[in-house]
């Protein structure tokens, strides 16, 4: 069974600074997706970024980028130029391909506070 671990329950960063959130996962599969979701106080789940395991190039979306280390089973999220609106819970998630369910397996989350 796959597991996703986020070892940082809470983090804090000064506005305009850079912060990195950690995620490790355990799987014997070779084909999968990894995701970072943002959950602001409104509790809406918002996709931040997605990484396909077969791609060596790290995904980027504006100020958000990942460091995907497949051999180490590590998938960290870097937020550059942090903004107050980045304050939220961040969840790392795993999706196995070839599984008819396409279910997401979530980590326990990291609460990020951006300080003005």
């Amino acid at each position, binding site marked *: 069974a796959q597991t996703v671990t986020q070892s940082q329950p809470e983090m804090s960063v000064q506005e305009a600074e850079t912060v990195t959130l950690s995620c490790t996962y355990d799987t014997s599969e070779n084909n999968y997706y990894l995701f970072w979701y943002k959950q602001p106080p409104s509790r809406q*789940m918002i996709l931040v970024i997605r990484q396909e395991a077969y791609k060596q190039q790290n995904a980027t979306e504006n100020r958000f980028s990942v460091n995907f280390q497949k051999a180490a089973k590590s998938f960290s999220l870097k937020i550059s130029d942090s903004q107050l609106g980045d304050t939220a819970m961040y969840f790392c998630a795993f999706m196995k391909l070839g599984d008819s369910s396409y279910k997401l397996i979530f980590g326990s989350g990291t609460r990020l506070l951006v300080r003005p």
Partner: protein
Amino acid sequence: NAGVTQTPKFHILKIGQSMTLQCTQDMNHNYMYWYRQDPGMGLKLIYYSVGAGITDKGEVPNGYNVSRSTTEDFPLRLELAAPSQTSVYFCASSYELYPYGYTFGSGTRLTVV
């Protein structure tokens, strides 16, 4: 486009009562999911459906039932509510050609007292 709509947004239920959480989507997605999120935790899969008439258990199905009579609707039934079912419930959907493109509802906060 309404996306995924969940009702109600909030509800307080007494121990032993039953209720149905409603979920409907207007995107013609064939995959639908129910997750629960306990305080300070990630989401856990309760049940999922890959199409009308087909449902299957997820990680935490005990105490719940689902049905999928139409593509659009995927209600979650709680029978004999217990305090352990106090949680935020999320419905989500995706399309088989783009299974990674989940659309989440806004959630239902349920308290069992």
